[in-house]
């Protein structure tokens, strides 16, 4: 099967005055056409950076220092800025976290939607306006004629996010990146936006990369999930694999910290203790070691290898290796190290 997106061993660093921050360290993943992929992880784990780099939106001092990125047959990291601009907003679009600030306050909604259409298609102004109206109707905004003439500050947050989605879908992209699209919205609106995105996905058939830290959202809409920690994908698998058969201690921790709805006893949430690693000085071994309850000596010394459980499910954790050792030899080579 042909992958729409293929990221192979991407390394990306920010060269700050304080030193090199390794934001992405050997990140590999793929997205099939029409697939919904969830990327979860805490702040600073590299979720957004991964997807921004796919659009060539990494600003100074960030730089891709290794690996290859392919999208729809394009070799992203070999393309010039000018070539990149033809793809952006056209074949791959993005919607951002905060709809309140993501629209330019001094231009009308119509102007901002039509801008993308006029840029990437040969449509005339009148045709572009028709298309913009069509898009607004598509994302469930009533009275599109009136809305086109309104400014962002005249719309509510949910409405603005719908406008952002309309703008992103203007040229029917193959891939939509949603960077925490619901974080800044209140809960009822969140559900509406997620529903809308799924509806549009079914209608238009684009693939979606959903970046979020809301595991609830991920569970309900994603086909596959990648769990990121400290610039690495520590576990990836089908949604069911991740939720019912997690193979990394961090994933397990994340799952434990979700509030449960039908619990009889009042149960305290279990947080993951400690704080994220300092990306300026990443530890030598597994980055999660210092916060891991099952940390072993080897975890502090060496990065665990990737272990495949199935075609789609893999994780990077020494515990998996040990289980194998125990099964095969009855003793642990890893522990001896």
């Amino acid at each position, binding site marked *: 099967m042909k992958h729409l997106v293929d990221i192979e061993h991407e390394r990306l660093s920010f060269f700050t005055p304080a030193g090199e921050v390794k934001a992405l360290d050997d990140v590999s993943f793929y997205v099939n056409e029409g697939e919904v992929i969830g990327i979860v992880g805490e702040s600073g784990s590299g979720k957004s950076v991964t997807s921004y780099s796919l659009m060539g939106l990494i600003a100074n001092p960030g730089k891709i220092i290794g690996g290859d990125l392919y999208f729809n047959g394009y070799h992203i990291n070999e393309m010039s800025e000018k070539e990149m*601009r*033809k793809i952006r*907003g056209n074949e791959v*679009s993005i919607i951002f976290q905060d709809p309140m*600030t993501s*629209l*330019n306050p*001094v231009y009308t909604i119509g102007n901002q939607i039509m801008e993308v259409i006029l840029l990437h298609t040969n449509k005339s102004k009148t045709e572009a306006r028709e298309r913009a109206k069509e898009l607004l109707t598509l994302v469930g905004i009533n009275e599109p004629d009136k809305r086109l003439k309104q400014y962002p500050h005249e719309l509510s947050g949910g409405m603005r996010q719908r406008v*952002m989605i309309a703008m992103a879908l203007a040229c029917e992209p193959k891939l939509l990146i949603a960077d925490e699209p619901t974080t800044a919205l209140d809960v009822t609106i969140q559900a509406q936006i997620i529903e809308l995105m799924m509806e549009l996905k079914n209608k238009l058939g684009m693939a979606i990369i959903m970046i979020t830290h809301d595991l609830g959202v991920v569970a309900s809409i994603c086909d596959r999930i990648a769990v990121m920690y400290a610039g690495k994908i520590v576990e990836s698998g089908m949604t069911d694999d991740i939720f019912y058969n997690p193979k990394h201690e961090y994933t397990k921790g994340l799952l434990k910290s979700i509030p449960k709805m039908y619990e009889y006893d009042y149960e305290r949430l279990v947080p993951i203790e400690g704080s994220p690693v300092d990306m300026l000085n990443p530890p030598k071994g597994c980055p999660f070691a210092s916060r891991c309850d099952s940390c072993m000596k080897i975890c502090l010394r060496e990065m665990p290898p990737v272990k495949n459980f199935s075609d789609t499910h893999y994780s990077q954790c020494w515990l998996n290796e040990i289980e194998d050792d125990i099964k095969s030899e009855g003793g642990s080579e890893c522990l001896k190290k």
Partner: protein
Amino acid sequence: MLKYIIKRLIFGIATIFVVSTLTFFLMQQVPGGPFAADKSISKAAQKALEVKYGLDKPITVQYLNYFKNALHGDFGISIKQRGRDVAQIISSKFPVSARVGGISIILSLLVGVPLGSVAALNRGKILDRLIIVFATLGIAVPSFVICTILMYILGVKLELLPTYGLTSPLHYIMPVLALSFYPTAYIARQMRSSMLDVLGQDYMRTARAKGLSENVILFKHALRNAILPIVTYMGPLVAYTLVGSFVVEKIFTIPGLGGEFVSSVINQDYTVIMGTTIFLASLIIVMNVLVDIAYTVIDPRIKLK
């Protein structure tokens, strides 16, 4: 909008009334008088002059008389410049200052806005540092120093430009440069900081994600948002620059209104002081209304009520 403008103009008239009343009584408090310095005039002649200009009457009567005449458009005759009335002085000298000032405002915008934007886009690089140094100098160095340096280099050493008067286009170059220095530096600095602010906004990322070219991003999406603080500054800048600068006009011997301001105060030429003060106050008020209107054109979030 129209209602707002009318309201502002009514307030403006009230402001002018207060400003002129304060000026009237304050200038009378200054020791001496228009004729005190002229030792050649005898006591009797001085008395006769005071009677002629109505300065012998009680101050409240003078005040009422002045406003009665002013309301009829008569701002009196100059006490020191024989045979010229105030309206005549202003209408003959303002155009001179306004021409020099107008050119310098346009120049400072044309140079300051791009300079500030370029600095912001090259933040932290050498170009940015150079522009910051220029902007700091422009704000810190007083205009008489700049005038003198310009005059010494361009006028005296290189003999490229005439050093006094305003008789040919060449004559404008040095006064315009001298007048533009401060506002250019100020605009560049302001533009740099507001541009930096705008460049970090989320909607700039959206614009980039749309695949727009850097030029469209900069000129369409960034500039219009970043220009607001400059527009604010334009109100007072335009008013003060159009009426001219005392220092620049004195140094380059330009017969403008700026010199008139200061010399009228030194000479205690009461009617000219009043006339120029009311003129400047009106100009500032009109400019501020224009700035407010410009705001609503640039930023739709601002509504005038």
